[in-house]
C-alpha cells in the first residue's frame, strides 16, 4: 500500500521509509520551502522520532516527537533524513 516516491540517487534513509512502530534519530531536514515549518513543529536534528501509524490509504502518517503527535504527508516525511 506504499506510495512510491522519487528517490534521489544518493539514498539516505528518510522518515517515510520507516515502518509503523519503528523509531529513529533525525539527522537532517532537507532544504525546502517547508524546512522552517518542520523545525517549528519540533522536528529537529538529533531528536528521536517514532512512526506511530499511517492513515488508511497509506498517506498521511502520524509520528511521535518530543511527547507530541504530528501528522505528516509522505512527501513531507521524505524531507526528514534519518541517521
Amino acid at each position, binding site marked *: 500500500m506504499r506510495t512510491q516516491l522519487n528517490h534521489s540517487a544518493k539514498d539516505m534513509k528518510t522518515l517515510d521509509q520507516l515502518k509503523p512502530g519503528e523509531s529513529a534519530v533525525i539527522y537532517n531536514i532537507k532544504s525546502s520551502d517547508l524546512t522552517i*515549518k518542520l523545525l517549528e513543529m519540533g522536528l529537529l536534528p538529533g531528536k528521536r522520532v517514532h512512526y506511530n*501509524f499511517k492513515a488508511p490509504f497509506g498517506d498521511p502518517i502520524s509520528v511521535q516527537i518530543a511527547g507530541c503527535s*504530528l501528522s505528516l*504527508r509522505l512527501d513531507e516525511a521524505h524531507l526528514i533524513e534519518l541517521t
Partner: protein
Amino acid sequence: MSTPTATAKSINVQKSNLTVALAGNPNSGKSTLFNLLTGLNQKVGNYPGVTVERKSGKCSLPGGQVVDILDLPGTYSIYPRSTDEQVVTNVLLHRSSSHYPDIVIVVADMNNLERNLLLFTQIQDLGIPTIFVLNMADQARKRGLRINTKKLSQHLGQVPILLMNARNGEGLNELKALLQQQIKQHASPFYDVFPLFPEAIAEVKYLLKTQTYYEAYLVLQHFEQLPFLSASEKEQLTHLRNQLHFDKNTLQIEETKERYKRIQPILDEVLTLTEEKGTTSFSQKIDRIVTHRVFGYLIFFGILFLVFQAIFTWATVPMDFIDYLFSQLSEWVKVTLPEGVLTNLLAEGVLPGIGGIVIFVPQIAILFVFIAILEETGYMARVVFLMDKMMRKVGLNGRSVVPLISGLACAVPAIMATRGIDNWKDRLITIFVTPFMSCSARLPVYTILIALVVPNRTIWGFINLQGVTLMGMYLLGFAAAMVSALLMKYIIRAQKGGFLIMELPTYRWPRWGNVFMMTYEKSKTFVIEAGKIILAVSIVLWVLASYGPGQRMEQAEQQLLSEQAQMPGDEENMDNAIASARLEHSYAGIMGKWIEPAIRPLGYDWKIGIALITSFAAREVFVGTMATLYSVGEDFEDESTIKSRMQSEINTETGGPRYTLAVAFSLLVFYAFAMQCMSTVAIVHRETNGWKWPLIQMAYMSVLAYVSALCVYQILA
C-alpha cells in the same frame, strides 16, 4: 557589536485601559484562558483588511481596573503560513497602533515546552513586556514532570512565570494579580539576531526607528505583508533587501536553529521527569480505532449521520416556534400600528425578512455545538488526517472537510471556516465548491417539490421514496462539489504545494464553556453577516412586489372587484385573488414575465420566474413567493396548503397540471446548483478580497443550474 539599548520601560499609564494580548501555540489552552478572563464580555470583529476574526474582551481585575484582552490566533512561530498566523505578526510589529499590546501573555502547553519556548523567546525579543503562562500543569504533574520555574525565569530575563490549569481556573487569580503589577520589558534579547545580518538590520532600525534589532529584522523579513508600512517604505526595504542579498528563508532557518540550541540546555536544567507514564498512550489507543481503515470511516460517517439527524429533527421544534413568533409579531404590528406604507413595510418586508434569518439559527447552533465538541476533543484533527488523501485526489485538502460539513447548515459560516486552510489554492477551491453542499435553506424548497410529485410510498418495508429522493438531492450537491473541485484543480495554477504538518492533539473531554462560546459566536456572526443582506434584499423585494408602474395594479384590482360585483363569492378567496392579481402587475410580476422566454425550455412559467428572481437573494424565499403567488395569504410555512394549491395549478397550454414530474425535478436540480444566496456572494467577496471569484462562481453555478435543469426537463418531459 552592540546590544539593543532598550531598557526596562514602564507601562504606558496615560492610556485608560491596558491592552493585554494572548499568544500561544494552537491547542495550548489559549482560548480557554481567554474565555475565562473575559466571560461573556467579548466581541468579535475583524482585523482591518483581512477577514480573520479579531476576538477581544474586557477583564476586571480585583483592584477595580479593567484591562482589554485580545486573543491572537494560535501560531507556532513569528513566521506565518496562513492568514490567521499573519495577523499575529502584524499586530506584534505595529508598535504605533493604538491596539498595540502593553503586555503579551504567552500561553504554553507545559508538556511541550521546547516548541512553545521558540514562540515565547521570539515574542519576548520584540521588546514587549511578557508573562509566561505554563498551562496544563496538572497533566504535566500526572506525567511526573517537575519544573523549576525560578530557574527558568532566570534564564528568560526574570519573566514572571505562572503555572496554570485554565480548564478549572487554577492560577487565574494569580494571573489577574500579576496584571496589576508593573511588568518589565526584558533588557537584553534571549537570542541576539543582530550578528546574523548587521548592515541590513542596523539600516532598518535607523530607517523605521524600531525599538529592538529583532523588530527591525522581522520587518525586513515580512514587510510585503505589513499593512501599516507606506509604499515608499516598502520600496526602500525592497531595495535594501536586494542590495544586501538578505536571504530571508536561510536566515529564518538559522535563527530557529540557534534559538533551539539555546533552549535545549535550559530545559535540561529546569525540567525533571520522575516517572514516564503518558496520557499519550491512551490517545494512541483511541487513534488505533478512529484511524482504522474500516472502523475509522464507520465512526466518522456515524458521527456525520448523528449530526445530520440532529440538525433536521431536533431543530424543528425551535424553528416552528420562531416561525410562529414572527408571524404573530407581523400580525400584531399590522393590527396595532396605524395603517400605512411603513406599517406594511415593517409587517410584510422587514419582520418576515428578520424571521427568515432567525429561523435558521437553531440548525446552525446545533451544527456548531457538534463541531465545537469535535474540535475540543481533538477528533477533528483525526478527521482531517483520515480524509486528506481522498480530498487531495479532487483538489481539496483534509482541512476542507470541516467547511464542507458546515455547508450542510449554511454556506456563510462554512466559508468563514476555510481560514484555517493555509494553502491558498486549496482554500479557494473549498470556497468555490462549498455552496454546492445542500444548505438548510434548500430544505424547504426540496420538501415541498418532492412532496408534490414523489408518492409518499414505502418500498421493501423500510425505504421511503420521498426520503430517498431527499437524500439523493444531498448526494447530488456533494457530487457537484467534488466534480467542480476536480475541474478547478486543473484550471487554477498552483503557486505552492500545500502541506499537512499538523499536530494531533491529545484527546480531552470538551470544556462546555468553550463549546457554548463558539456556538454563540458563530450564530451571532451568522445573524449579523447574513442578516444584513437578507434584510436589505427582502425590503427591496417587498417594494418590487408591492408596487407596479403607473396604475396597472389598481386597474387589475378594480377589474376583479367589478367581476365580483357581478357574481358575489367568498370574501376571503376574493382577497387572495386580488393579492395575486396585484402581484402579477407589480414590478416583480413584470420581471417574471420578462424572463419567461428564457425559462420556458426548462418548463417554467412567469410565476415560477418570479420565484426564481426573488430567490436570487435567498433560496428559501421560494416557498414564501409560491405562497403569495398561489394566494394562500400570510401563512407562509403551512406547506400542505401551498402544496394543494400548487397541485391544482393548471398549465394553460397543456391543460394538465402545472407541476409535472419533469417540472418539479427540473426545479429541484436548478435549486441544487444555482447560487441563489446574496449572503454567500458577499462572504466570498470578503474572503477572496475582490469581485473576481464571487462573479466566476456565480456564473459557473448559474450556467450549470440552467443547463442541468434544461437537460432534466427535456429528458423527463
